């Protein structure tokens, strides 16, 4: 078990290191002067020279990448040239808002999706099953930002039931929840579909396997069979999926934050793209990537805890 943990963690670290290298190298790979990229078209030659010296752009590429990796591990992702604040500080300020949104999104997807999937598997070809089937495919297909826009249009602008802008008053929990509803709904809806389909398919497959027949042959109560013998096994692919889901949700949240004018990493990145503020973007990509890598790692580890067979192979 510990060997698996060590292996998995080191894999995660390797990926993060490669990611950091890649992001940094992209600056160097772009044709033209990297300092012009970072500072933008209105920078003066003196500013660019200063930045060049500061970033050590004269050193060989490998050295630059290496020293950057080291700095990132120390928590330093560079300084924002426009506000002179550390990039990491700026990004971490915005991170909680995005994480809350993602958490809300995935929570409601789980709460609705998994039971729906279970019910569909146990009551195959029932009306609810067929309805869920079409609905799932539909919601998976439709892009989250379109759902967000329509949601905004219908519920916020037209019906005015829910707020359209922002994250709500500081300290007012109810208000903040109200502001979370539409964005979380938009990014989570597709996942309700994914989860219910996956759980349904998984459960059906497991229920058809020989060991379930063994359990039935021993007269075990149906409830025990479903929850302990079938669900535990069927839920494993779901765990892996949710690890990957965080990555997608990070992307969807960019749109949700922009459509609903919420603070968060998405908004930060968007504004930085407009000003071509690459250090902030790099920092944001790094942090979101690290979160993604962590989440997939945790998903794999939880998977290994639940599935003893997994621990033997990476």
């Amino acid at each position, binding site marked *: 078990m510990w060997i698996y943990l060590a292996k998995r963690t080191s894999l995660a670290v390797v990926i993060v290191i490669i990611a950091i290298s890649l992001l940094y190298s992209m600056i160097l790979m772009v044709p033209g002067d990297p300092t012009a990229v970072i500072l933008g078209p209105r920078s003066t030659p003196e500013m660019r020279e200063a930045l060049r010296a500061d970033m050590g752009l004269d050193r060989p590429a490998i050295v630059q990448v290496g020293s950057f990796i080291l700095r990132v591990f120390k928590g330093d992702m560079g300084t924002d040239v426009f506000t002179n604040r550390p990039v990491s500080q700026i990004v971490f300020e915005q991170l909680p808002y995005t994480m809350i949104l993602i958490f809300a999104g995935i929570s409601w997807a789980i709460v609705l999706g998994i039971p729906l999937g279970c019910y569909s598997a146990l009551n195959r070809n029932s009306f609810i099953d067929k309805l869920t089937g079409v609905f799932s495919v539909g919601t998976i297909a439709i892009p989250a930002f379109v759902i967000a826009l329509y949601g905004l249009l219908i519920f916020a602008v037209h019906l005015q039931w829910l707020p359209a802008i922002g994250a709500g008053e500081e300290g007012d929990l109810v208000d903040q929840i109200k502001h979370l509803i539409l964005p979380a709904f938009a990014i989570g809806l597709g996942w309700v579909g994914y989860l219910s389909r996956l759980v349904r398919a998984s459960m059906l497959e497991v229920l058809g*396997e*020989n*060991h*379930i*027949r*063994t*359990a*039935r*042959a*021993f*007269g*075990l*109560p*149906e409830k*025990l069979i479903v929850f*302990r*013998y079938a669900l*535990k*096994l069927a839920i*494993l692919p779901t765990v892996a999926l949710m690890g990957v889901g965080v990555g997608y949700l990070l992307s969807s949240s960019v749109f949700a934050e922009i459509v609903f004018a919420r603070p968060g990493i998405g908004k930060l990145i968007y504004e930085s793209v407009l000003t071509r503020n690459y250090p902030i973007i790099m920092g944001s990509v790094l942090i979101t990537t690290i979160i993604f890598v962590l989440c997939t790692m945790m998903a794999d580890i939880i998977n290994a805890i*639940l*599935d*003893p*067979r997994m621990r033997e192979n990476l």
Partner: protein
Amino acid sequence: MTNSSHTNVLDIRNLSIEFSTNRGRLKALRDVTLTVPKQKIVGLVGESGCGKSTVIFSILNLMAENASITNGEVVFEGQDILKMSAQQLQSLRGDRISMVFQDPMTSLNPVLAIETQMIDIQYRSSANKEEKRKRAADMLDHVGIPDAIHRLKSYPHQFSGGMRQRISIAMALLAKPALLLADEPTTALDATLEAQIVHRLRQLQKDLACSILFVSHHLGLIAELCDQVVVMYAGEVVEAGDVRDIFHRAAHPYTQALLLCDPARIEEATRNLPTIPGDIPDLVNLPRGCIFQNRCSKKIKTCTTSSPPGYRISPTHTANCFLLAKGGDI
């Protein structure tokens, strides 16, 4: 063989089962009649695909979704299993009827420890968890799993195929059934282990005074263990009788051929092992006449036009072959 419910623990009468497949309806079992008397061991013999497993699963009513029972009854201790409610079935399974499965690799739940599974199946008992654990460990010990009490905490994939088979047997023995169904329980085991398991099963049968329906294609094993034998071919019972009737006075051409093909019987060293030429007929489009006709060396004209009924050769021995009617070559 008398059909009185006083002496039979299991009475299968005219059971016919069909499966719906892409190609049409597959008639897996046709008019199968078979009895298991109290406290006897009955062997069910036949090649792969003859329907042995289907019979076994019908006894527990655990068939696949595309199966339909078109005729017949499966009477256990006087009640028709096929007509029972889900509740009644559940109380029977693992209690009055117990089963050892054929495939050890997939018959155990992969994400639960052996301990959990063995304790779960004792759920009807009022003993506490510790006692149930002890019973499980004892039973594992009984079937030859070393260091049983610690190995309980392991998972199925950490055991070899042979050991998993032994665990399945142990699980079946935890109950005190009136009828034990054994679906090729020793196929995955080597000869010495096989002998041990057979010995234990015989012991168990005496201790519990239960009946065993033992499915196998290993003739030597059947000869050694069973009191009575039923021979199946392509979904039909072709012969049934006491073990001596079958092995010394086989009446149906299929049984005779089967015995001739048994490698254990060969006395001289040879390169060519005898086989029965031909293939099992298509069970979707059944041929007219006797099911064995296309592989039978003693075929006569009637065989191609109608199906032979069962002929009683002796009070304990019946076979479905027209040759018996004429009093011809047996």
